[in-house]
């Protein structure tokens, strides 16, 4: 029983180096394919995660004009014409869930001996809810604290760590640009959002305090709104535009504000990730191709080396079909072995490399299956073609 298989495929292990080379060719093809797809997939998921913290229900009204570039909303021109009263006016729009005026600037934050520079974000009590930032400790602002110009602050996760370490921060007084603020809350880790700002590296204070005591201006930088019903978002954006154009008495062409939805940022961002994943796809197809060309070359070599064996088998009465089957199975064994090892190495290296590049861990099953499938197909073709050619040669020529 077993002797049959030995007689058919015993030759597979005869030249070990040759076998090794063909298996390695496949391994390189599959593992690089896998690794690159893991990176592509991880990049996509990372983007989606970023967008989550900047929900699709959020609209930003930004003073000046904004360009969306590389997935970021960049303020290209700063004006002083967006006022707190504009924010109040927008409250009248129905279907708005949360709204917060925002004035942000850089500031120096200090607690005992620790000093650091961070973003000072002047907002109201709705901002946390609007951005869905989780409170790790303490509480949100009270409306009275906003209206009453109270010097209270909610710390971003990193700021809390750097100023206080493991110690309690709630109730402590820190200095922001030298003014004393009482810490009332700490935000849990959020990470980098779609606007590419590290949301853990900021402190929140009442906007009223920000524009008066801290920065002494009469304008705000932006207004954040969120809507009840996402399907209404375009209509609401339209409505905001109408109201502000009227209030600022500007024409549609030279507006002094810009309205950005998460979707707008998303669009550009997915465009870039699509570009990225297309690039990855082309590279991985190239890798696979290189791998299979290698396998084809080695298989051709192997069949050439074994032309005599083919001739012997033919002279003993082997039919072309039987010889093709023999070489088909040989290449299937080589490609499947290489494919499995390649999958293993690919997974293993993505497991190590992805966290190294701060990418989320993903196991892209679809590329794994496609690459496995493709390599097997390639491997089979690579093995069968030279064998097919060899069977066409006269046995007497093969045996000469």
């Amino acid at each position, binding site marked *: *029983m077993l002797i049959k298989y030995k007689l058919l495929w015993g030759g597979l*292990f005869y030249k070990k180096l040759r076998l090794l080379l063909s298996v390695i060719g496949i391994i390189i093809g599959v593992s690089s394919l896998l690794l690159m797809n893991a990176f592509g997939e991880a990049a996509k998921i990372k983007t989606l995660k970023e967008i989550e913290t900047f929900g699709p229900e959020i609209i930003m009204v930004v003073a000046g004009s904004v360009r969306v570039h590389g997935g970021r909303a960049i303020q290209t021109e700063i004006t002083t014409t967006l006022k707190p009263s504009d924010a109040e006016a927008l409250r009248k729009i129905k279907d708005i869930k949360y709204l917060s005026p925002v004035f942000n600037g850089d500031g120096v934050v200090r607690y005992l001996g620790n000093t650091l520079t961070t973003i000072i974000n002047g907002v109201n009590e709705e901002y946390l809810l609007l951005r869905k930032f989780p409170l790790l400790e303490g509480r949100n602002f009270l409306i009275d604290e906003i209206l009453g110009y109270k010097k209270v602050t909610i710390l971003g996760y990193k700021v809390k760590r750097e100023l206080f370490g493991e110690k309690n921060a709630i109730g402590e007084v820190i200095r922001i640009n030298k003014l004393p603020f009482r810490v009332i809350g700490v935000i849990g880790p959020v990470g980098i959002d779609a606007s590419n700002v590290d949301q853990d590296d900021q402190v929140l204070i009442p906007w009223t305090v920000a524009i008066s005591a801290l920065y002494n201006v009469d304008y705000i930088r932006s207004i954040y709104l969120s809507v009840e019903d996402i399907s209404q978002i375009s209509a609401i954006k339209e409505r905001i535009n109408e109201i502000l154009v009227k209030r600022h008495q500007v024409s549609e062409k030279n507006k002094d504000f810009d309205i950005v939805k998460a979707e707008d940022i998303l669009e550009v961002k997915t465009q870039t990730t699509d570009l990225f994943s297309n690039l990855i796809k082309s590279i991985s197809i190239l890798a696979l191709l290189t791998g299979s060309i290698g396998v084809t070359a080695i298989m051709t070599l192997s069949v050439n080396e074994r032309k005599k064996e083919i001739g012997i088998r033919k*002279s003993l*009465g*082997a*039919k072309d079909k*039987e010889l093709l089957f023999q070489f088909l199975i040989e290449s299937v064994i080589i490609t499947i072995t290489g494919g499995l090892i390649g999958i293993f190495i690919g997974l293993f290296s993505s497991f190590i490399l992805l966290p190294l590049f701060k990418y989320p861990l993903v196991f892209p099953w679809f590329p794994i299956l496609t690459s496995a499938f493709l390599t097997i197909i390639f491997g089979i073709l690579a093995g069968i073609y030279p064998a097919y050619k060899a069977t066409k040669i006269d046995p007497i020529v093969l*045996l000469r």
Partner: protein
Amino acid sequence: MVKDLVILKNITKAYQTGKVIYPVLNGIDLEVKEGDFLAIMGASGSGKSTLLNIIGLLDKPDSGEYFFDGQEVSKLNKKESAYIRNRKIGFVFQAFHLVPWATALENVLLPLLYKDEEITNEDKEKALELLKRLGLEKRINAKPSELSGGEQQRVAIARALINNPRLLLADEPTGNLDSQTTQEVMSIFKELNEKGLTVIIVTHDPEVAKFAKRIKLIKDGVFIKQ
């Protein structure tokens, strides 16, 4: 009356290299009866191997008729030729042509792989018996590279015999052997022939040809009348 195993009628064969056509066989007539032992001799390049390959269904004549075991076989397709080669013809070559990675026993069993039947323990017994008969009982698991020329050729003979062929063909079977081994190998052929096997060998060597019952000389693509 003894049956004709091989009948060749006016067989021709020419090879073409580029635009030049080289006629090799120019009308070969041959009858080989069962139990015969024929030696074909001739100068190098006279077409001995070509003729033997045609007889062994490894090659096709350009024209002429070939009856093997009562069947016209000159126009069979590849598959049908392979079938007859496997069941009815044993081949022994000058260069032995053993599969390098397989042991002596495995090489002997190889033709059974193409017989559409499972390889049984009896087959194995038979292969061992053949190897023993040829004095190779101690070399059963040796690879060809570990065997001497004479031993390799004896393995090749055992392989040619495993399917109980009607006809044994040997193309210069002693061409790579020293004179003593040549005698040994030829004695094997002689013994096989005496037990009833039809043998055709091609050789340069008159000493080898002596073992045959009759000798035919090929020149200019035809047999010389004797």
